[in-house]
């Protein structure tokens, strides 16, 4: 395992780091004027990283997983799949960001640079096969996230969001670290394979504590109930493009990290963590659904919606089978499309003065003012609610099918029944846009970049998306095959 192959397998992260550092210099010398240039370069770097990850995905699907740096890091199909989603989501968010900050005169070249470093950290989270790499990736991503949350320096809500995120994020990191130290103490290894081998010999009560702490910290990162309290506040306070980012890429990364953790080092102890995952899944579905009902602020509502969605994703994980992991990956892909689409639509909602609109009252009667936008949002909301023939249904379908195949019929039945509660507020969206009378003026034009992102997301979640089921299923299955040895 020489250095060249190690660098090759980590090519996406290495490349993004170099571009990030160079762009940091550009922004330091170029000042705010260079913001546009830096954004474009960052987007191209992310597209390049996406393509490279796609290449690694093909490579790993045909050959053995690429281990780098003495098995600290693995460029397998699972990691590559997650990274493609992460980079694509980051790219989409970067494309719709500048207009939001321009209106406040707050856009700076540091923003895309922070996003790049965040992407590097998230890539590491998805590929880490050692507790140390995992922690470094996690912190790299988290630290840039804290700064991004408070990027609107003059806005108190944004600052508050950043501070809240920082304090609670640090707490979660502490919990993970504590769990990591326990696991290390009881197994004598930080490497995933080493941990698994040690657990196979003996799984003591102390090690169980370690597993629970690690999972609790990770649950915080994916904002699963009961560690979800920060989500609505941070999502509401952070600038809307940053919220869109938080709801997509870091969620994918954290979920990938959680799945890898559960399916590799802890794969032998499914009974130990399954009940935790089942509780978190059902609690997330119910709390996410009930919490959203009373919300007036759309960002807050989408925050609860993301908690709700995490619950469904965890149902796939609870199955603890290759089909379950494949279901999780499929769900994540569809979830990213739906969430990017919803937030882009939200960013396109502005009053004639250019102020962003973000409450239910603001979108009343939108279907008469902006029919195209309203129909896109309608499709996105029904898709989030999981109503066929929209593609969001397919995500729920695969995770529930995995649960049923794993004999978790009761879990599937309760979960799907609880999803009806969630449908209530999604259809409220539609009701407000289509049934109510318009109360206020909205901006009638949106830039082409926003339309492209929105159009692509809606095309994916439209019934046309079902033609993706075969390739998406194959890719997800290939990603899940990364853990074949462990299961």
């Amino acid at each position, binding site marked *: 395992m020489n250095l060249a192959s190690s660098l090759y397998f980590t090519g996406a992260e290495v490349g993004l780091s170099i571009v990030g550092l160079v762009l940091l210099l550009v922004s330091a010398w170029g000042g705010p004027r260079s913001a546009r240039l830096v954004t474009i370069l960052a987007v191209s770097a992310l597209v390049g990283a996406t393509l490279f990850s796609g290449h690694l995905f093909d490579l790993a699907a045909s050959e053995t997983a690429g281990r780098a740096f003495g098995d600290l890091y693995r460029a397998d199909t699972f990691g590559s799949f997650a990274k493609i989603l992460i980079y694509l989501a980051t790219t989409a968010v970067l494309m719709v960001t500048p207009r939001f900050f321009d209106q406040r005169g707050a856009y700076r070249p540091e923003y895309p640079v922070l996003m790049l470093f965040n992407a590097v950290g998230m890539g590491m989270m998805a590929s880490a096969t050692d507790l140390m790499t995992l922690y470094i990736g996690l912190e790299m991503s988290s630290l840039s996230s804290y700064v991004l949350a408070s990027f609107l320096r003059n806005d108190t809500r944004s600052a508050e969001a950043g501070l809240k995120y920082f304090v609670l994020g640090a707490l979660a990191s502490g919990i993970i670290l504590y769990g990591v130290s326990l696991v290390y103490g009881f197994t004598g290894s930080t490497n995933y394979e080493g941990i698994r081998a040690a657990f196979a010999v003996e799984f003591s009560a102390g090690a169980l504590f370690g597993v629970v702490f690690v999972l609790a910290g990770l649950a915080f990162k994916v904002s699963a109930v009961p560690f979800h309290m920060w989500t609505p506040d941070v999502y509401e306070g952070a600038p809307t493009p940053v919220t869109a980012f938080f709801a997509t890429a870091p969620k994918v990364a954290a979920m990938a990290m959680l799945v890898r953790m559960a399916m590799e080092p802890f794969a032998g102890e499914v009974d130990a963590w399954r009940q935790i995952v089942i509780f978190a899944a059902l609690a997330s579905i119910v709390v996410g659904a009930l919490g959203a009902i009373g919300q007036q602020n759309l960002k807050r509502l989408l925050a609860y919606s993301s908690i709700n969605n995490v619950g469904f994703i965890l149902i796939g994980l609870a199955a603890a089978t290759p089909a379950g992991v494949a279901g999780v990956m499929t769900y994540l892909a569809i979830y990213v499309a739906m969430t990017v689409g919803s937030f882009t639509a939200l960013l396109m909602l502005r009053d004639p003065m250019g102020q962003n609109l973000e409450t239910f009252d603001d979108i009343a009667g939108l*279907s008469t003012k902006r029919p195209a936008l309203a*129909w896109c949002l309608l499709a996105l909301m*029904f898709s989030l609610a999981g*109503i*066929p*023939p929209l593609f969001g*249904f397919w995500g729920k*379908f*695969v995770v*529930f*099918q995995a649960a*049923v*195949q794993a004999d978790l*019929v009761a879990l*599937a*039945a309760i979960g*799907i*029944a609880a*999803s*009806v509660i969630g*449908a*209530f507020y999604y*259809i409220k969206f*539609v*009701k407000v846009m*289509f*049934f109510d009378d318009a109360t206020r003026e909205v901006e009638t034009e949106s830039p082409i970049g926003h339309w492209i992102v929105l159009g692509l997301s809606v095309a994916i979640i439209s019934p046309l998306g*079902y*033609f993706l*089921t*075969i390739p*998406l*299923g*194959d890719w997800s299955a290939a990603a899940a095959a990364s853990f074949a040895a462990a299961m």
Partner: protein
Amino acid sequence: MEFPILSLMLAVPLVAAIACLFLGAQSARMVALFATLFDLALGVLLWLNFDIGGAQWQFVERAEVFAGFSYALGIDGIALMLIMLSVFLMPICILASWDAITKRVGEYMAAFLLMEVLMIGVFAAQDMFLFYIFFEAGLIPMYLIIGVWGGDNRIYASYKFFLYTLLGSVLMLIAMMWMVNEAGTTDIPTLLNYDFSPQAQTWLWLAFFASFAVKMPMWPVHTWLPDAHVQAPTAGSVILAGVLLKLGGYGFIRFSLPMFPEASAQFAWLVFALSMVAVIYTSLVALVQHDMKKLIAYSSVAHMAIVTAGLFAFNVQGIEGAMMVMLGHGLVSGALFLCVGVIYDRLHTREIDRYGGLSINMPKYALFFLLFTMASIGLPGTSNFVGEFLALAGLYKVSTLVTLVCTTGIILGAAYMLYLYRRVAFGEQRNADAARMPDLNAREWMMLAPIAAATLWMGVYPESFLAPMRQDIAALEVRMARAASEGDSQLRVGEPMERNANFVAAAHDAEGAH
């Protein structure tokens, strides 16, 4: 490979729906009308080419374009009849909305055309999950139809409709997944002959029942129906009553009965009990309504209860009767909602008391209304008589009590329908504005006359409709025979007496003594 007529029937309204979104009001109406008429023509073609007594599944299409399930279409006689009902009612719905809908016409027509796609899809789907997708997707256009173009309380009604039916269906999805996992196929014709263990059947049956009972709707989960009917625009009510309610019955015939025969027999008493309550209770509720649409909505629940009772009779008459009631009720209740719509368009109220003596100023209307009222009661010569008679005859073989109670529903039906008709069409002309209403125009003629003709056709010569279904229903009876109960009417041919009853032996002897 034969011509994919079912796919074409799905594609035509779908393309038209997308076109309507971008068109102005008048052109959207024309496009919608032409698309639905074209689908009707295709439907007629389908019926003409249906080989009665031939293969069970005809016009089969299959394409493996999805993971986990396939695009498989195909129909038997039962599905054929229900598809005919849908394509027949659809152009009439478009005509009914011609003048009544003035805002967002393009979107309205698009929603209706989408409804048509989904309804044909439900009846034609041969894949379990494809069926579910079509079945569930109908919620979206119907939610919009009620919510955007409905009456004053439309928001409440649309929410109730959406959440009620969604909660019913999701459990069915889990049951379907379990079945597919167990049987290893999503193909409905294969699953029809798969024997699930009786214990599993119990749970599966209940999950399917949750969905179909809500769609049907059966007492006590019928409460969404009156709200949805009252608030929906006229054409929306026609589609709800005409076709959407049939999804429940179709589900019982296609899934519950043949796939879970043991469980169906086990739960037949539950279905009978709920049906009996529904027949009596909703008929009585219908009797005291002041709102015409609500009255007809409750009458729908009562009629559907006869369908469920007939289905669970487990014999040919019962199921044939249930199918005929479904078809007949689709036509008649649709027509009754259209009749309400005709006078609602003129006076903008559904209050029965605001009308009266309409037969004086609207004689043609009164005639049509009378015909459909009589058909709803089940007068011989109309469609509903055939269905109700067959269903009750089949039921009588199983249970005298249930038949007795359900037949009472026909008497109560006569009571509320005649009472409605008397208050609306006969008597004094109490209200000046109602007395000034003009009679039917040409468009309304075109809506009501075809339904009237079909109602009489079905009543006078039901063989046209029963023939395509006969073989499929017979196959269904054979499939369920192993679980059928004995029934309490043990009709036996008795021992004949030695001599004729009018034989007078003594007199004969006496004669000879002379």
